[in-house]
């Protein structure tokens, strides 16, 4: 089949037909950027080769590196252009047909019904051309994912509309819900986050600690090299000013650490703002739509029926700011080897208050009497058992070895349980569960909390587990399996656990609604 050689299609109507279409020529940039990102992602080891060349070559190293750079640029350009030339697509009724690949030719057919998510992205480099990139995510593997990078925005929106309309059509319960005209006006805005809220998210999410971990790791790696210089700096520059006073030096170190933490917080805030800039969450025709992003504007949508659980998290810094961060979880078919898909399932709603999440949860799971909610606690036996199995027993084993080699000092590992006892008590204190017979809620945490809410009718299977001591005390551990997520409630009174199981089975077996 021959493809039209030049112009890009502008409308959805033009897309239908027998001819194969190309992306806009600017898509070449997209392919180049994709290669570069792939190169960087595939590891710093790629860069290490360059470093190796720089180290092991002599005077001519710049010549070699320079020619490598020229060669790489040529390959990138050629690769980008070839990828562009070989990428063709057309629409056949209710499915997309795509041919792509330079050496490995690939043909894909993706029917509208199988499309789970439609994301419209506006990368920075496409903006001058008025183009966008449309990602069609199917429930299957990432291989089947289709990305039309470099199509006019209007067409992308049309395609999205068309796909959403089709994928909705076969579901009867959806038709009952949305009898209105399918126009943009039926979209209700749920939340639009201001920059100040995003800054709060940056301050209170856990990314700071991930960054801090990376930073300390990097610092420790460099510490040995920097030590002599640092010592010299302290001796020659700092001490003449402060005097040889340990107190003052200590304060300086504290100030340094403080400054570092502030810097990390700033980075985290900036990151949160860049990623989530212009955050908008809206609801229309059984789907949640989200737009966000400063440099790359992203549009993602999640069908309401596919939502499996809602996570209401409050890390400890968020406690000070009185904010909660939500994660909406979808069906997770991600394979363990694929890191990208697990990210796709995370649908974060940053920095909200109970005024938002309570009605939002009620919308997802049905009315919840938040005011009368008194979650139950798990048994205190949890504290003792955790100490015994996870700390005393390993402690004794370690002590047996260490005391043999080091004498009395070797008995120190036995003290570890005492130091960790407050943590376990906090853990026990935060472990709560609640249910109204339709929706379950399980809360965990140490200081901050993470609460999972889910509809009983979406549970996949449920198990009860009992150790001998749990049997004696009439306790049980409840294990609830959702699609792609396991929820465990340890040391529940047996009666409660059995009732949860029975109610869950009842809900699952009597529900007539689709779970995904």
């Amino acid at each position, binding site marked *: 089949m021959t493809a039209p050689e030049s112009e890009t299609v502008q409308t959805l109507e033009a897309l239908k037909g027998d001819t194969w279409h190309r992306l806009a020529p600017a898509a070449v940039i997209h392919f180049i950027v994709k290669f570069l990102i792939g190169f960087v992602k595939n590891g710093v080891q790629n860069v290490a080769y360059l470093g190796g060349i720089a180290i092991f070559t002599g005077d001519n190293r710049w010549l070699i590196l320079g020619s490598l750079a020229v060669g790489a640029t040529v390959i990138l350009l050629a690769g980008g252009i070839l990828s562009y030339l070989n990428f063709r697509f057309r629409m056949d009724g209710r499915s997309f047909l795509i041919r792509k690949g330079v050496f490995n030719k690939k043909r894909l057919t993706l029917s509208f019904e199988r499309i789970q998510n439609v994301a419209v992205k506006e990368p920075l480099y496409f903006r001058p051309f008025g183009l966008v990139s449309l990602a069609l995510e199917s429930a299957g593997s990432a291989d089947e994912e289709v990305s039309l990078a470099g199509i006019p925005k209007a067409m992308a929106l049309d395609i999205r509309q068309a796909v959403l309309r089709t994928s909705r059509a076969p579901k009867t319960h959806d038709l009952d*819900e949305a009898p209105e005209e399918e126009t943009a006006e039926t979209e209700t805005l749920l939340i639009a986050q201001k920059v100040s809220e995003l800054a709060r998210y940056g301050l209170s999410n856990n990314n700071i600690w991930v960054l801090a971990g990376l930073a300390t790791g990097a610092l420790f790696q460099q510490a040995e090299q920097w030590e002599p210089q640092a010592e010299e700096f302290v001796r020659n520059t700092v001490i003449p000013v402060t005097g040889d006073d340990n107190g003052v030096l200590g304060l300086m170190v504290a100030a340094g650490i403080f400054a570092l933490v502030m810097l990390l917080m700033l980075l985290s805030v900036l990151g949160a703002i860049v990623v989530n800039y212009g955050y908008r969450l809206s609801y229309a025709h059984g789907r949640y739509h989200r737009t966000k992003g400063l440099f790359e504007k992203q549009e993602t949508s999640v069908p309401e029926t596919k939502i499996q659980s809602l996570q209401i998290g409050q890390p400890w810094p968020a406690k000070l700011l009185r904010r909660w961060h939500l994660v909406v979880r979808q069906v997770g078919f991600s394979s363990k080897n694929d890191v990208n898909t697990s990210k796709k399932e995370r649908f974060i709603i940053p920095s909200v208050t109970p005024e938002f999440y309570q009605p939002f949860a009620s919308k997802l799971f049905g009315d919840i009497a938040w005011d009368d909610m008194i979650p139950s606690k798990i048994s205190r036996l949890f504290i003792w058992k955790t100490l015994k199995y996870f700390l005393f027993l390993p402690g004794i084993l370690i002590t047996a070895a260490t005391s043999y080699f080091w004498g009395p000092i070797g008995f120190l590992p036995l003290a570890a349980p005492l130091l960790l006892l407050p943590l376990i008590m906090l853990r026990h204190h935060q472990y709560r569960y609640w249910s*109204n017979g339709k929706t379950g809620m399980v809360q965990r945490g140490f200081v901050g909390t993470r609460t999972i809410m889910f509809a009983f009718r979406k549970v*996949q*299977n449920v198990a009860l587990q*009992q150790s001998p001591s749990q049997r004696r005390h009439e306790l049980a551990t409840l294990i609830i399996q959702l*699609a792609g997520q396991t929820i465990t409630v340890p040391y529940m009174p047996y009666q409660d656990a*059995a009732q949860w199981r029975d109610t869950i089975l009842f809900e699952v*077996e009597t529900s007539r609604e689709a779970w995904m």
Partner: protein
Amino acid sequence: MAVEAFKNEILDTTNIPDADHIDFKALDRKFSRQLILEWSLIWLLPTIGWTVLYGLGKIESSVLSGFWPHFLPLLLLAPIFLVAPLHARHCGYAVRDHDIHYKTGVIWRKRIALPFCRVQHVEIERNPFERMLGLATLKCFTAGGGSADMKIPALDMQTANSLKVYILGRAGDNDDRA
């Protein structure tokens, strides 16, 4: 709105079927023989290693001397014969109208409940020992995780097959889209 006409009546808990008191069906009596065979095979491999190494004099210790250490692995064999029948006796399954239950464990006891309408697919698996004894393992998968969510071992071939057919027939029963 998505949740139109949502009803949330106070639930009469006495109406909810109770899964606590169900009669579990015992597994095939040949199950303990199957376990002994499987566990013995696991026992055999290190035992061979031990015998060869000790015979070659590669293991030296002040405690171990003479011929008797050759019999040491037998100490581990005894528990297999004790535990296998006990374990086999504590496993069982129960099929109800809408779900299937499996219990396992002597000390740490576990009971899994799997509603038929959540079953994605069902497999029958037979390892050489099972084929020898005429048994089969039934594996049920839901969308929960990667591995089988419920494995019922030691079913005779006919039961396994009819269970499979029954479960698959009930799978996706109350999914309106099916």
